[in-house]
C-alpha cells in the first residue's frame, strides 16, 4: 500500500515513519504542507493508495486538503484517514463531509493505527472488487455472462458528494453512542429500482443511480449531510438531529429534481426513477446496540412508504446481447 502522510510537525512525521515501518508499511511518503502534498500527488506517476492527513495545518488545513484530493478523478475514492489531536465532533464531522473515511487521534497508538490501516486495506479490497465489477460490466456490456447483485452497494464513480456506504457505517461506528444522539438517518428508496435493474443494462442502471444521487443531494442541500448508496435502490443520509427534517419538503424537492430528468428518460425509453423519502431515524438514548441500526431503520422507513410496500425480490443484471 502506497501511503502519503501529511503533517506540518517534522518530528511527528519521523515518529509516524518509524511506527509504520515497524508495522511493515514501507512505501510511505511524506509532506509537511497541503501544497507540497498536492505537488507530490499530481507529479507522481503511481497513484497513492491511502492518505494520512493532519487536520490543523496552515495555510491549507487537512480538511481543505482532503477536499482538493477528492476533486482529483484518480483519488475520488482513495481512503483518507485524518491523523489528528482534534477529536471534537465538529472536526470529525467536517472531515467526513470533506470525504475522509476514518480518523485516528494523536498521540498515535501503534495498535490503533494498525487497526485503522487494516480497515483501509479492507476498503481497498472491497473497492477493487466493485471497481472490477463496474469495469467488467462496461467491457461486456453487449455480451452475455456478467452478473451483479442488485443488493451490491456499488461505487458510483460519477456521483459527486456521495460517500461509500462502508465509510458512512464507519463514521457512525467511530462516533460512539453519546455523539450519535446528535445525528439522524434518512433514507431514500428508488421504488421502481428492481424493475429498472431488470430491464436496463448495468451501465444504464448505474447512470440512473447517479441521477438519483444528484437529485437527492440537491434536495438535502439545506441540511449538513453525508449521503451514501446502500444497494438495493436505497440511498441513506446522516444529518444533524438538531435540524428539523421536513420530510414533505424534501420529497417535493426530489420530485421537482426528477421532473428535470423525465424528458431524457422518455427519449431513452427507460423508466425514470421514483424516489420515496423515509422518516428521520435516530438511535435511542439508552440504545447501546450497533449504531448502524439507525441506517437500516431509516431504509425500512423509506421502503415502507412506497406504493409497492415490502421490498421486492432481488434479481441479477442481465447483460444485453
Amino acid at each position, binding site marked *: 500500500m502506497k501511503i502519503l502522510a501529511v503533517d506540518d510537525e517534522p518530528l*511527528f512525521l519521523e515518529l509516524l515513519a*518509524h511506527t509504520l515501518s515497524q508495522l511493515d508499511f514501507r512505501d510511505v511518503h511524506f509532506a509537511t504542507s497541503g501544497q507540497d502534498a498536492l505537488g507530490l500527488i499530481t507529479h507522481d506517476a503511481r497513484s497513492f493508495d491511502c492518505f494520512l492527513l493532519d487536520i490543523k495545518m496552515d495555510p491549507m488545513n487537512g480538511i481543505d486538503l482532503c477536499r482538493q484530493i477528492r476533486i482529483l478523478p484518480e483519488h475520488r475514492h482513495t481512503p483518507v484517514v485524518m491523523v489528528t489531536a482534534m477529536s471534537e465532533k465538529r472536526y470529525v464531522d467536517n472531515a467526513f463531509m470533506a470525504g475522509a473515511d476514518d480518523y485516528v487521534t494523536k498521540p498515535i497508538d501503534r495498535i490503533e493505527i494498525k487497526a485503522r490501516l487494516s480497515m483501509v486495506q479492507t476498503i481497498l479490497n472491497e473497492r477493487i472488487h466493485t471497481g472490477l465489477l463496474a469495469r467488467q460490466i462496461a467491457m461486456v456490456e453487449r455480451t452475455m455472462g456478467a452478473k451483479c447483485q442488485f443488493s451490491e452497494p456499488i461505487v458510483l464513480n460519477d456521483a459527486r458528494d456521495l460517500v461509500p456506504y462502508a465509510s458512512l457505517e464507519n463514521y457512525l461506528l467511530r462516533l460512539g453512542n453519546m455523539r450519535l444522539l446528535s445525528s439522524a438517518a434518512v433514507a431514500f428508496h428508488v421504488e421502481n429500482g428492481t424493475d429498472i435493474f431488470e430491464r436496463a443494462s448495468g451501465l444504464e442502471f448505474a447512470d440512473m443511480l447517479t441521477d438519483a444521487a444528484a437529485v437527492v443531494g440537491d434536495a438535502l442541500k439545506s441540511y449538513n449531510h453525508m449521503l451514501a448508496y446502500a444497494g438495493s435502490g436505497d440511498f441513506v443520509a446522516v444529518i444533524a438531529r438538531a435540524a428539523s427534517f421536513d420530510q414533505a419538503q424534501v420529497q417535493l424537492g426530489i420530485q421537482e429534481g426528477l421532473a428535470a430528468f423525465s424528458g431524457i428518460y422518455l427519449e431513452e425509453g427507460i423508466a425514470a426513477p421514483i424516489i420515496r423519502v423515509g422518516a428521520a431515524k435516530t438511535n435511542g438514548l439508552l440504545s447501546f446496540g450497533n449504531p448502524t441500526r439507525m441506517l437500516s431503520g431509516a431504509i425500512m422507513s423509506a421502503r415502507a412508504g412506497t406504493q409497492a410496500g415490502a421490498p421486492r425480490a432481488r434479481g441479477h443484471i442481465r447483460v444485453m446481447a
Partner: protein
Amino acid sequence: MNNIDDKLASTIALLRLKFIDGLDDRILQFEAILADLRKGCNQREALCDISALTHKISGIAATFGFPEMGAQARHLEEMIDNQIDTVPIQQIIHRVSPVLQAFLDDLESQI
C-alpha cells in the same frame, strides 16, 4: 512482537532527545508571538499562531514521555479555539497569558 516493541522504544528514545533539544526553538517562537501580543500587533493572528504551536506539541509530547505537557498544550489550544470567534481578543489574551506563561515555565524546566 518484543523485537518490534524494542525497536520502536529505542526510536522513540532518540526522537525524545530531539524533542527536548528542540524545546529551545519552540520557546523562542512563543516568545516572539508574545512580543507581538504585547505590542498590540495582529493579536488575533498571534493567538492563532499560539494555538497552532500548542497543537503541534499536544500531538507528540505524550509519546515522548511528557503527558502533562501534552495535556497543558491541548488545554491552551482549546482555550483559544473555543473563544477566538466569540470572545473579545483582549479578554482571551487576559485569560490565556498566565496559562501560557506557566506552560512556558514548564517547557523551560525540561531543557
